[in-house]
C-alpha cells in the first residue's frame, strides 16, 4: 500500500566526488544514494524510509558514456539509459546492452534512470543487469581514500543486495572492448510492452567461424539475483554452434535456474521458456554478427 507520509530526511547534494565520499565515510548505512531515483522514489512511496538521501545530481562529470576501441566502454554513474540508446558505439559493439536499453521502460524513465542505478538496485529483473552480466565488466567502487574494481560477477550477493560496502560509491561501469568476432544479444519476455521482465536473457560469445568460446550467458527472474548460466555455458564453450548444441544448452539451463511464482508469471512457465529464450538470444546474437 503506498503512503502519503514522507518522513523527514536530510537531502545532501555533494558538489564533488570527494565530498560525496566523505559523506559516505561519515554516515555509512544511514545514507541512501539516489541517481535517477526511479527505484528509490517508488520505494519511498511504498514506505521505505531514509535518514539521509544523497543525490548524485550535483556531482560534476559523471554523466559520461565513452567508448574507446582499445580500452572499451566507460559509463559514468549519472549516465542515463537514454544515453546508451543514443550511442552508435554501444549499438555496434555491445548489442546486448543497446537492446536492453532500447526496450527499457518508457521514454520518461529512460531519460531519468541510470545504468549504474540499475546494476546497484540488484533486482533479478534488471534489464541492464542481464546485458552487463553477459558482456562482462566491472564497477569502479570509490570510498574515501581508496578505490577497487568490483567484477560484475561478484556484484549481486542476494535478492536486492549487492557487494557494495556502505561507504562506497559506484562511480563507473567498465565493459571491455570486444574482440573481433564477439557477438551479443538481449531478449526479454513481459506481460505488456512497457513492463518489468518476467524473464530476461543476455548472451555474449566469441565466434570463430561457427565455434564459440568465452561464452557468457545471463538470465534474470529465474533466481534471487541475476545469474550466469554455468551449465549452459559449459555446453557451448568451445563447441560448434548448431541446432544440436543449442538444444543441449537450452536443456542445460534447467540445472542453472530456480524460478518462483510471482505476480508476473509462474515458476513452471519460466522453466518452460528459459531454454527457448536462451536459444533465441544466441540466434539473435549470431544473426546480427
Amino acid at each position, binding site marked *: 500500500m503506498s503512503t502519503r507520509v514522507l518522513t523527514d530526511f536530510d537531502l545532501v547534494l555533494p558538489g564533488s566526488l570527494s565530498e560525496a565520499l566523505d559523506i559516505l565515510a561519515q554516515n555509512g548505512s544511514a545514507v541512501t544514494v539516489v541517481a535517477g531515483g526511479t527505484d528509490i522514489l517508488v520505494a519511498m512511496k511504498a514506505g521505505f524510509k531514509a535518514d539521509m538521501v544523497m543525490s548524485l545530481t550535483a556531482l560534476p562529470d559523471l554523466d559520461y558514456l565513452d567508448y574507446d576501441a582499445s580500452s572499451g566502454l566507460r559509463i559514468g554513474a549519472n549516465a542515463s539509459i537514454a544515453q546508451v540508446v543514443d550511442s552508435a558505439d554501444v549499438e555496434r559493439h555491445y548489442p546486448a546492452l543497446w537492446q536492453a536499453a532500447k526496450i527499457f521502460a518508457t521514454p520518461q524513465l529512460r531519460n531519468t534512470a541510470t545504468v549504474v542505478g540499475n546494476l546497484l538496485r540488484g533486482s533479478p529483473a534488471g534489464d541492464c543487469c542481464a546485458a552487463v552480466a553477459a558482456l562482462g565488466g566491472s564497477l569502479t567502487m570509490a570510498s574515501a581514500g581508496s578505490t577497487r574494481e568490483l567484477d560484475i560477477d561478484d556484484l549481486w550477493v542476494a535478492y536486492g543486495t549487492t557487494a557494495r560496502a556502505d561507504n562506497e560509491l559506484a562511480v563507473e561501469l567498465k565493459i571491455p572492448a570486444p574482440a573481433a568476432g564477439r557477438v551479443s544479444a538481449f531478449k526479454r519476455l513481459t506481460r505488456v510492452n512497457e513492463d518489468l521482465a518476467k524473464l530476461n536473457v543476455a548472451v555474449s560469445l566469441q565466434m570463430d567461424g561457427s565455434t564459440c568460446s568465452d561464452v557468457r550467458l545471463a538470465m534474470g527472474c529465474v533466481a534471487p539475483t541475476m545469474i550466469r548460466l554455468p551449465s549452459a555455458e559449459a555446453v557451448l564453450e568451445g563447441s560448434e554452434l548448431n541446432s544440436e548444441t543449442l538444444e543441449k544448452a537450452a536443456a542445460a539451463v534447467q540445472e542453472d535456474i530456480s524460478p518462483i511464482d510471482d505476480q508476473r*508469471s509462474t515458476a513452471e512457465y519460466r522453466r518452460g521458456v528459459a531454454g527457448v529464450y536462451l536459444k533465441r538470444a544466441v540466434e539473435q546474437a549470431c544473426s546480427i554478427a
Partner: protein
Amino acid sequence: MQRARRWQWQRIEGIQMSEFKTIGKNEQRVDIRSKVLGTAVYAADVNLPDMLHGKVVRCYEHAHARVVSLDLSAAAAVPGVVKVLGPKDVTSKAFNKSVIDLMASESTAQMLGDIEEQHIFTDHVKFYGDGIAGIIATSEEAAEQAAALVAVEYEPLPVYLTPEASAAPDAVQFTDQKPGNLAFSLPDGMFPGGQLGWGEVDQAFEGADLVIEDTFYTPKQKQCQMEPNSYVALYDDEGRLNCWMSSQMPKLVHEKLARLFEMPMSQVKVTQTVVGGGFGARLGMVMEPEVCAMALAVPGRPVKLQQPREEDWLTSPSRHPSRYWMKLGFKKDGTPAACDARSTNFKGGYYLDGSALASTTGFWLQGMYRFDTLRYKGDSYFTNQPVCGAFRGYGNPQTNFVLEQMIDRGCAELNIDPLEWRKKWHKQVGDMSWLNATPYTSCALDECLDQGAEAIGWAEKRAKYASQTGTKRRGIGVSVGNHTSGAFPMILEQTTCTVRLNEDASATVLVACSEIGQGSHTTLRQIAAETLGLPLDDVRLDAGDSDANGFDIGAHASRTLYVGGTAVMKACEDAREQLFARAAKLLQTSIDELDIDENKQIFVKDSPDRFVSAAKICRDGSFNFANPQTGELEGEPGQIQAYVSYKPDNNSPPFFSTFVEVEVDTETGEVDVLELVSSHDIGRAIHPAICEGQMEGGAQQGLGMALMEEIYFDDNGHVTNNSFTDYKMLGASDMPKMTNILVENPDPYGPFGAKSVGEAGLVTPVGATANAIFQATGIQFTQGPITPEKILQAIKEKGLSYT
C-alpha cells in the same frame, strides 16, 4: 477508418430537415481543452478553506474476521487529529452502496431480494481492505499516521474464496438476510422455475445430433478508470450536507445519501465534478457514505477523502468473476436445438447490485441466437473478496467468452463455417430481445459481418490458417453480440431536461446526464443544437448540480445518448416550437412554413426575405418593453423554456461483431494480436470519432479481459496485484492494428436513429480473441484470461491441432 453509409436517412418524427448541420460531424469535444490543458477540476482538485482530511482505517491483516476490540486512543492523540470515529460514532443505519435497488419498485426489489447490509465502519471484516474506523485530521499525513496506531484485536474467520467454499453448510454467514451465503438466485416469482428461457430443453437435447458441454471461468477484472475516487464533503452552517464527487449516477447517489443520513433531499447537495472515467466502477456510491459521515462529525468543516490507487482498487467494485457452465445441442445441419447454462458468480463481501448481474448474464445469452429451446440459471454467492458490481458490458463479456467459444466448438465438430453459422442463426428484427419481452427494432448484423469479414480477409485467412507448420501459428476468429440502449423495460428509465432560451436566443440545456469521458456532453449538445437549429456555440449543457438539474438515472446501461439524447431532443423540439410559434405570428404564417438559418434568423421557407431574428423574439420575451408612443408591449412576454420528463418505450439493442487475427508463439505461449476489426450497427453515428473512441477503448478492455487482466489472491484472500505495477492492461503500443466500421441503419426509436455504443465495444473482442486462439492452436481455453502461461501448459498437455 471505414464507414458505411448504405442506408439513406429516414425521416424521424418531429424533425424536418433535409440536411444535418452538426449530427454526424466530428465536432470538437466540449471538455477537450480543459482536460488536455490540465485545468479540468476533478474531485481531487476541490480544495476548500479550512479543509480537513479523512482516512478510513482498513483491515489488511485478514480477509475475513470479526473485530473483537478497537482502541482509537493512540490514534486520537496524534498531533493534527481532530476526530476519530468507530462504528458507534457514525450512523448505525444499514445501507447498500449500489443504486440498482432504487431502480426497481419496492415490491420488485423485495421479490429480487435486494438487501441493505453495509455499514460505514464494520465489525465484521468481509474482504481484504474492509473499513473498520475513520480518522479526521488536519493533514493526510497525520490521518495516515493515526490510522497506523489504531489498535485492533481480530478474531480471524475462515476465508472463502469460491462460491463452493462459502456455500458449505457450516460456513460463517455474511449476513443473516442471505442464508447459505447465497446472495442471489433468479427468483421464482419473477422467472418461473428460477430460470430464463423457453421450450423443453431436456427433450431437445435428446433429439440433438451433437451435444457439447463445458465449464468456464471468467476473471475478476478491474475497470482501471484513470481518476481514482476522491471526495470532499461539508455539513455546512445552514445544516446542509454537501458532497463533491464523481459518481456516474449523481442523482441516485443524492437520494441514497439523503436516505442514509435521514435528511430531506433538499438538504443534501451533490456536485458532480469532472469524472475521469467510469466503466461501472462508480455506478453507485463508493466512498460517499464514509466521507459524508466524517463531514457530519465535524460540522462546518470540509473533509476531503482521497485514497491511493491501491486502496481505490480494493474499495471500488470490479467485474464479477464467474463460473459458467454451458451445454449446447445441435442438429447435424447446425440447427441450435438447445442451450442450457448456469453462471455462478463470486459476489465479494457485500451484496451491492446483487440481483442484477446474474440476471443480465442470462439476458445476453437468450438475446443472441434463435435456439429452439433455452434454459439459463444464475446465482451469486458471497466470497471474501473486494466487492463486485458493474463493469462495462454487465455480464455480456462473460457470456460472450463462453457462448462464442461453444458455438465455434460446435461449428468445428459439425464442419460448418462459424461466420455462416452466425449469419444464419442470430436473432433478427421482430425476434424477442434480451429480456424476451420486446422485439428487436433494427438489426444490421449481417452487414456488420459482411463488411468486417471483407476488411480482415476472413475467407482467405480462415482457409489459409487451417493447416500450418512451424512454431508461430496464426488464427482468425469472429464473435457477435448485441447489447441494449438503456434499461427499459427491466428497470427504471427516466431523464428530465429543461431547455432555456437566453435573451440572445442562445440556449442552456439543463440535464443531469453524466459525462464520464464517453463524450456524451458533446453528442447531447449536438442533438440540442441540431434540434433547436442553433449554432453549436450557442448551446451550453449544464449538468452535475443536484439543485439545478432534474432527475436522471446516470450513466449506465449504455443509456445516455439514447434516453438522455431523446429527452434533450424532445425538450428542444418544444422550445423550438415555442420560438417558431412567436415568429409565425410576427411573420403571419404557420410554424411549418418556417426555418432558421445560421445567423439565427427565422425565415419563411418560400420567401426568405420575410424573416425575424430569434434573438429579438427572445429578448422581447424577457424584457417586454412598452412602446413609448403606443404603450403597446413589444413582442410576446415570457422567457421561452421547455421541460420534459422522458421515459423511453424501447431499448433499441445495437448489434456488433468483431474479427480478431492472432499469432501464437507455440514455444512461449505468447499471443500477438495482429489485427482487430469491429463493426457496429450503430443506428446513426451522431459523432463518428466518439463512436470509434468507444469501440477502441472497449477493445482495449475486451482484449485485456481475454488475455491478461485478473485480480489475484493469495490463499488468505489478500489481493496481490492491486497496482499498475502488478496488474497489467494493454498499453497504446500493445494495441493491434484496428479497424472500426460504423454501419448506419437508423433505428426507428433512437434519437436521429442512434443506438448505443458505450458498452458494446468491449464485448465481442473477448470471444473473437478466444476463437482466434482456438483456430491457431486447436485448443479452447475455458479459464480466462488466456495467458501465455495457460497456453504453454495446454500445448504441452494437449499438443497442437487445428480447428
